[in-house]
């Protein structure tokens, strides 16, 4: 750690400690009734989104049903946009498990009731479509479908429909929002320990080399790093976000089963691996890391020197399968004519 420009303690400060209460065992329902929950006293917004069965049984307009169905299909099989909007091996549901509905797996309906809002990452007010576009540019290493396009409308319709019944701009914190990281571990996260823990707990699905797994040409397990994974600008390259995703969701089917130490070590190991370049890259990794440090990279290892082999993370021109294609939404100026506060 001593050779790193920024101590990891900075990355750790991003982790949320407010969510220590969740449900440790899924007995009958992930979305137990609020009054049955131990956290009811915390006065949080608990929302159970409708399921696809609810959609079929509902009396909304059949045209809207089919658009929402298309949005669900795009969400769970985003690979159908491969080569047009998606240039890696991910689906939306690779990170947002359970079709974007499940608490602590960054349930996507939360975006539908909290946006438009100011977003620190790009320093302006974003609406739902722009937020989804961000996922395409970074997490999918791709190029977003145009605002108002069939794909964008279907995806946002799916998000909004999942929020059915939840209040707009809620005045309470949202239960299960994001990927809350576990408490800071006793020992600072360590690459070598992380590698061992990764090989023991993750490699059987995600492979020893992190490349994920295709079977008969069809996607099964997503790659946590490498060209098939998210790029350096994706939220999950932040060590604490990766730790939160892992702790709350992995191994698949066993949420919150790993120790905080293993979780942070694995997150540190995975986020110390190479992946496609950040689309905000200006040709110099140190400058890019500094420019986007305050709003983003202070929580990632981008631009830092890996201790065991002196490799500078993100110091390359590899944009993955998308090559020279630039996502049109990255750096797009907004609200330039509005007077400042």
């Amino acid at each position, binding site marked *: 750690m001593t050779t790193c420009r920024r101590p990891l303690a900075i990355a750790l400060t991003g982790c949320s400690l407010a969510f220590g209460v969740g449900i440790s065992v*899924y007995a*009958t*329902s*992930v*979305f137990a009734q609020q009054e049955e929950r131990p956290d009811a006293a915390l006065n949080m917004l608990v929302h*159970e989104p409708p*399921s*696809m*069965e609810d959609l079929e049984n509902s009396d909304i307009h059949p045209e809207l049903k089919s658009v929402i169905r298309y949005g669900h299909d795009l969400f*769970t099989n985003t690979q159908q946009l*491969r*080569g047009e909007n998606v240039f890696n*091996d991910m689906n939306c549901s690779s990170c947002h*498990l*359970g*079709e974007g*509905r*499940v608490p602590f797996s960054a349930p996507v309906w939360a975006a539908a009731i909290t946006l438009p809002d100011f977003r620190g990452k790009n320093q302006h007010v974003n609406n739902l479509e722009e937020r989804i576009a961000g996922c395409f540019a970074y997490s999918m290493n791709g190029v977003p479908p145009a605002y108002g396009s069939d794909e964008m409308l279907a995806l946002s319709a799916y998000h909004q429909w999942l929020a059915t019944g939840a209040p707009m701009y809620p005045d309470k914190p949202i239960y299960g929002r994001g990927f809350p990281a576990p408490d800071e571990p006793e020992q600072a996260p360590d690459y070598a320990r992380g590698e061992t823990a990764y090989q023991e*707990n993750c490699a*059987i*699905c995600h*492979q*020893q*080399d992190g*490349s994920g*797994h*295709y*079977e*008969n*040409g*069809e*996607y*099964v*397990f997503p790659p946590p790093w490498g060209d*098939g994974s998210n790029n350096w600008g994706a939220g999950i390259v932040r060590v604490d976000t990766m730790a939160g995703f892992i702790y709350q969701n992995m*191994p*698949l*089917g*066993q*949420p919150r089963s790993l120790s905080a130490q293993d979780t942070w070590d694995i997150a540190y190991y995975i986020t110390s691996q190479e992946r496609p370049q950040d689309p905000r890259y200006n040709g110099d990794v140190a400058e890019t890391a500094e420019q986007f440090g305050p709003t983003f990279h202070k929580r990632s290892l981008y631009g830092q020197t890996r201790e065991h082999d002196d490799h500078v993370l993100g110091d390359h021109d590899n944009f993955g*399968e998308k090559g020279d294609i630039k996502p049109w939404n990255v750096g797009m100026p907004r609200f330039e004519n509005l007077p400042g506060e």
Partner: protein
Amino acid sequence: MNQKCLSRFGLLMGISLVTGGALAQQGDAERGQAAAATCIACHQADGSGMNVPNGESWPRLAGLNGDYIAKQLHDFKAGQRQNATMVTFANMLDDQQIADVAEYYSQMPLTPGNGGDEADEALLARGQQLAERGDWNAYIVSCQSCHGPGGMGVGSTFPGVASQHAGYISAQLTAWKNETRSNDPQDLMGAIAKRMSDNDIQAVSAWYATQPGSEAQETAQ
């Protein structure tokens, strides 16, 4: 699927064979045929096994991943998977014979699964839902998230479950649920099975018994 994914698939298959470790002993299908003489009584000459309603069903072995079969036989011998009948027969095989019979059965063309035909529409619909999408309200992840698209299996770790006999699938899921089977890596199957109701188990067993177990079988039907 594009070219890059296909080449990556090829690479992964290479890796998964190497990582089979002790199980990667080279098998010979011809020798396997001779060693399989004791298997035929239950698993049948064509490897189709048999669905036995109200009894112990014998799994289809034809077309299953060879390394998966070999691991199961080693696990029976080592007591890591329990079955009174199988432990006897597994103990008759040495390591080479295990590799040989595994290779022999893995090369056989798939045979249809039985035991799902009498399931009603609602049960099959529930089975399809669990297979393809899971039931996340109960934190049951979809079967295909590990067993692959169509439940046709992934590598040597996650066996093909489509076109398997319903009686066998339900017996195994029940065993995982009751912790009488636990030779899966990292409790990946056990953790899910414990959240499944008996109806869920019947549903998914019936569904997969009616599904093609390979793309070749799908085309032939």
